[in-house]
């Protein structure tokens, strides 16, 4: 995830304090990995150093840090460029799941790899059910549904891979040890 660009995007909606940015992040990306305050301030510091945001100066009246941040012209240009650029579609085939099966086949046997695949499949299935319950709850917002959809589609893809790999693991093991 690109935290700097996300913060630039949030600031494009108006000047904000660090804690307001954190709150805006949490409400727009409800299922995301939590964003620590420290990370918000560290990122803002770098954005300010690079001239992408400007601080409007601390108000010394309240709180430890009441500095507000504004997007600069240069910041807006950087944001526009990021929005227009396509992300590289999976340039490397990299996944902890994939790596774990490779290592299991190297250091153990086909049963070990299979046991892992089955256990992972079950964990994925449980998470799939959790997210499906979340998005179908009557209280679900579009934010919730869209976030859950993203995760569901990826879990679904992983599950398909786990299924087919379970069917191929014996052949794969033979190839690794031939």
């Amino acid at each position, binding site marked *: 995830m690109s935290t700097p660009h996300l913060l630039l995007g949030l600031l494009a909606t108006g000047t904000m304090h660090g804690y307001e940015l954190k709150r805006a992040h949490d409400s727009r990306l409800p299922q995301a990995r939590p964003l620590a305050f420290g990370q918000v301030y560290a990122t803002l510091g770098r954005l300010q150093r690079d001239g992408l945001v400007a601080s409007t100066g601390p108000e010394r009246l309240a709180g430890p840090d009441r500095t507000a941040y504004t997007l600069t012209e240069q910041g807006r240009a950087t944001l526009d460029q990021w929005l227009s650029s396509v992300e590289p579609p999976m340039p490397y085939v990299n996944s902890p799941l994939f790596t774990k099966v490779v290592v299991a086949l190297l250091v153990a046997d086909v*049963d070990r790899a299979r*046991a892992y695949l089955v256990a992972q499949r*079950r964990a994925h*299935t449980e998470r*799939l059910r959790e997210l499906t319950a979340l998005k179908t709850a*009557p209280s679900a917002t579009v934010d919730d549904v869209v976030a859950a959809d993203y995760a569901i589609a990826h*879990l*679904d893809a992983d*599950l398909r891979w786990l299924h087919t790999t379970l069917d191929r693991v014996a052949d794969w093991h033979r190839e690794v040890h031939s």
Partner: protein
Amino acid sequence: MTQLQARGLVKSYGPTPALRGITVDIGEGEIVAVTAPSGCGKSTLLHCLAGILRPDAGEVSWRGHRLDTWSEAARSRLRRTEFGVLFQFGQLVAELTAAENVALPLLLAGTGRRAARTAALTWLDRLGVADCADVRPGEMSGGQQQRCATARALVTEPRVLFADEPTGALDTLAGEQVLTQLVRLAREQHTSVVLVTHEPRIAAYADREVVLRDGVIDHTGLGLDAPLAGGSR
């Protein structure tokens, strides 16, 4: 209370076994997904549970009464009054409008024409396709047709709904809308659902999953209560 109970179901088509000893219970209001790769007997299991097919061996009980030994007429009556069935391709009657299609099971069960139409309109509205009431299937999208078929399957307020790949012919979003409404309405009226699918993301709508492989329940499969690997019960 257990609605449906299958014990040791065996069913073959000629020399090809489809079910090789299946035991499963479906509780009241429970939504159970039956998943398997293609050709592993899931539709056969659904048809045996619904009393459409008779197993070669084993028993199917409906609320404590064996139904596999009943006559075709008795099983057919049970299907009309207590069961709802939904297939992959809605199988609406092409010559009838949506409202007429949905009213059909009620008319067959002896409900008056006016009451049947009122109920049909209510169910079309619940499924979000009230606009289609006077439209024939040929003029509807696949998603609209499947919602009408869902209304038709639920209009008799069945105790069990059998759904065989109900979203198989729909795009992701349309399929999801059909399923979300189906599950919500089933829960509201405590209808049990037997949901046959080969897609994990569809099975995730269920409370529980029964995984078949080569005609038997695969204990190493996706069921949350399954032991890790190579286990047997």
